C-alpha cells in the first residue's frame, strides 16, 4: 500500500515475470546502476529499497524481486499481497515470456490490490535482432488492460528509471490505510497487516 507522511510516500512494489526476463537486472540497474551479464537466478525473493523524488514529494519504493520459475508460483501472493505497484516483466525475445506476463496480469487483476498501479515492461530491448514480441502488440494489450507500457533494457539502462518514475507519478496520493475488503487471500489471512507496512 502506498502511504503518505508529509510529502513522503512509501510504496510496496513487486516485480513479476518469467524466469530470466530480467527482473533482478532491472532492479539492480535502478537501485545500484549496475548490470551483470551473468546475474544469478533469484531464489525465494529479494528485497530492495530506493527513493525517488517526484515533483515536490519523495517516493520510497520497497521493492520485492521474485523468482520467475513457474514452480515457485505458489509463493508469489506472499509478495504481491498489499503491493501498491507491480512491474510485470517479459523478454522481447521470448513469446513465451509475454504469454506468462499476461497470466500475471490476469492474476493480479483477480487477486491483487484493485488500485494497484501496473506497468508492463518489455525488457532486453537492446536485442532488437532477436525480437519476437512487437511493441505494438504489447502496447495494445497494455491499453486494453489499463497498464502502462514501456520497452526497457537493463543492459543499456534505457527506460529503466523511467518506468519507476512513471509509477511514482501514478501512485494514488490518498490511500485507505487498511487493506480494502476482499483483498485478503484464502490461507493467508494474518499477513495483510504486515505487508501493508502502513499506519506509520
Amino acid at each position, binding site marked *: 500500500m502506498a502511504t503518505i507522511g508529509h510529502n513522503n510516500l512509501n510504496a510496496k512494489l513487486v516485480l513479476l515475470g518469467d*524466469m530470466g526476463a530480467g527482473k533482478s537486472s532491472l532492479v539492480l540497474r535502478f537501485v545500484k546502476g549496475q548490470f551483470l551479464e551473468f546475474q544469478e537466478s533469484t*531464489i*525465494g525473493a529479494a528485497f530492495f529499497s530506493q527513493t525517488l523524488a517526484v515533483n515536490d514529494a519523495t517516493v520510497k519504493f520497497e521493492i520485492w524481486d521474485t523468482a520467475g520459475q513457474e*514452480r515457485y508460483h505458489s509463493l508469489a501472493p506472499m509478495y504481491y499481497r498489499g503491493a501498491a505497484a507491480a512491474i510485470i516483466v517479459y523478454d522481447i525475445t521470448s513469446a513465451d515470456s509475454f504469454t506468462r506476463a499476461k497470466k500475471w496480469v490476469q492474476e493480479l487483476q483477480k487477486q491483487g490490490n484493485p488500485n494497484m498501479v501496473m506497468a508492463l515492461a518489455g525488457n532486453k530491448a537492446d536485442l532488437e535482432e532477436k525480437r519476437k514480441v512487437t511493441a505494438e502488440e504489447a502496447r495494445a494489450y497494455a491499453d486494453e488492460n489499463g497498464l502502462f507500457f514501456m520497452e526497457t533494457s537493463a543492459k543499456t539502462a534505457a527506460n529503466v528509471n523511467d518506468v519507476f518514475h512513471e509509477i511514482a507519478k501514478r501512485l494514488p496520493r490518498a490511500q485507505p490505510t487498511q487493506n480494502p475488503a476482499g483483498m485478503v487471500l484464502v490461507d*493467508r489471512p*494474518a499477513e495483510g497487516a*504486515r505487508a501493508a507496512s502502513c499506519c506509520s
Partner: protein
Amino acid sequence: MHETDIHDLSDDADYAAASKQGSSSMTRTDSSKQRSSNDPKDAEIVYLKDNVTIHPTQYAAERISGRLKLVKQGSSLFMTWIPYKGQSSNTRLSARDKNLYTIRALPFSDIQSIRRHTPTIGWQYVIVVSSGLAFPPLYFYSGGVREFLATIKQHVLIVRSSEDANLFLVNNFQDPLQRTLSSLELPGSLANRTPSSLGSPSDGNLENNHILEDGQLRSVQQNNKQRQKSHDPARDISIQVLEKFSLVTRFARETTSQLFRESLVDGHGPTEKRRTNWASKDHQSQEMVSNDVEIVPKRVHVPSDPLEFDKLSLVWGQPRQHPLGLQEWSSFLDSEGRIVDPDALKKRIFYGGVEHNLRKEVWTFLLGYYSYDSTYAEREYVVSVKRSEYETIKTQWQSISPEQAKRFTKFRERKGLIDKDVVRTDRSLSFYEGDDNANVRHMHDILLTYSFYNFDLGYCQGMSDLLSPILFILKDESEAFWCFVSLLERLGPNFNRDQSGMHSQLFALSKLVELLDSPLHNYFKQNDCLNYFFCFRWILIQFKREFENEKTLRLWEVLWTHYPSEHLHLYICIAILKRHRSKIMGEQMDFDTLLKFINELSGQIDLDPVLREAEALCVYAGENGAASIPPGTPPSLPIQDSSMYHQQDDEVL
C-alpha cells in the same frame, strides 16, 4: 494399488479392538451394515497413505499418525483413518484418545465436503466435513492430497466449488443446502482465523476446551442433527460448524498454532512459561496480538538468550579440526579398499572436513555413489556400469530430433529453463568462466539428463546451484551425475511443486527455535515472521549462496556426514539467527527488513564458529529437538519411496 500387508492386519486388530470398546461419537454407526469389523473380503483398497497425522495438541509428541485408506465396496466408497498402534511414547495419549480420533469406514454418502489446504507454510492437509461435523485436519506428512482427491473423483461425484477452488463438494452438491456450503465459512477458513473468530464465548477458558468426553461430543452431534432441520440452511451450517469448533477448540486452537503465519496462538509449552519476563508478558497480551494496536515498548528491550549461547557452544560444540588428509584417509581403508569404520570416518569429517584434493574420492562415499563396504575392484566396476547407464539416459534426449522437439513442449520448456540457468551459475569461478565453456555444457547435459531420469521432478531453479560444486569436485560428467542423483534423493523434495518439502523444513525450524530460543520465537510471532520464509534460500540450496565456494564445499561435506543429526542444517539456521538476534529484535525488524537483512548476510557468515554453535544447539536440544522434526522431513529419506514425488502437474481435478 497397494497390497494389503502385515501392517494392515495389525491395523485391523486395532480396529476390531476399538469397535468392541463401543463407538465413539466420531464413528458413523449407521454405516455398520455395510461393513464387517474387518475389511471385508470384497472390499478393494483404492488409496492408501501412510503418515497421515492429526495434531490434537500443539505438542509434537502428542501427534497421532496413522494410515488413511479409501476402500471401495460394491458401489460405495469409504474412508478410514486408523492410528498406528503403540507408535507414541506419550502416556497422555491413551488408547481411548486414539479411539476417539479413529475414523472407521466413513461412507462417502455421509460426506459433504472436503477442503484442501496447501498452505505456503506447513504441511498440506484436508478437513473433511460430514453431517455438519468437521473432523480434525488430516496432515499429509508425505504429501498425497492431490492423489487423494483424484482417487475420490474416480469413484464418487465430487465437484470443485465455483467460489472456492480448494473446496470440494461431495455427492449432493445440487442440494441447495450443500451449495450454500461453498459460500460459507467452513472450518478450514475458520481455523485460519484468529481464535476469537472461532466464536466461543468461553474461548478464553482453556480448561473447557480440553474436555473431550465421548458424551459431550455425542450431544453435540445430536445438537447438530436438530439444527439441520431448522430454517435457514446457510446460517445453520455455519452455526453448527462454529459450535463444533468451540467445543472442539482443542483441535482448532492447536491447528491454528500449526499454521504459523497465524500470530495468535496459545503456544506456551511448559518450558516457555519458566522463561523470561518477555514470554510471560506475551502470555498476558496474547489475546490482542493480532490487533494492530499491539503495544511496542518504547525503549526496545532485547530479551536475553535463554541458553547463554556463548557458554553453551563452549561446553557442547567441539573445536574444529584440520581437514582430513591423504595419510589419515588411507588409515580408514582396509587392504582391499573397504572403509572399515564409516561412522568414525564421518565423525572425523564432521569435525574437520576434507582436504581439497581428497574431495573427489571422499565425496563419492558421502553422497552414496560408492558404498562404504565396496572394494577397489567393485568400485571400478560400478564406475563403468554407471557410465554406460548414464549414457543410455542421456541418449534419450540427445536423440530427440528438431522435428520431434517441435511437438514436445515439455522437453523444450525444460531445456529452455536449463539453458537459461547454466549460463548464470557460478560463472565467476574459473572452472565455469568464459564463452563456450565445456563445464557449462557438462552442467547443461547433466541437468537435462536428470530431468529425464526423474521426469516427475524435472528441472527446477536452484538445482544448478546444487550441481555446480559437485561437478567442480568430481570433474567427470557421469560421476557428477550419479552423485547429484544421490544428493537429490534427499533434497529432491525441496523442489516439490506444492513446496511440501520446504514447508516441513521451515515448520521444523520454527519448532526448533521455539525450543531453543523462545524469546526470539515470540518476537517472530509478534512480527508475523513465523513462516521463516527469510530462511528459504538457505535451506533450498543448502547455503550455497551464503558462502564463498571453498566454504560451501566444507559445509556440504560436513552436512553430508549426517553427524550428529541429518537435520544439522536447521541448527545452522538457528546458530546464524542467534548470532544476530539482538540486532533483529533491537532494531525491531519486520518481515521485509528481516528478509533483506538475511539476504545481505551472504558472504558475511563465519562458517567455523557457526558450525560449532550448531553442533552445540543440536546436542543441547537432544531428543526434544529430534521430536520437533516431523518424520520424513528432508533430507531424511522419505518413509515411503513412492510418496517422494507426487505428480507435478497441476490439473488433476
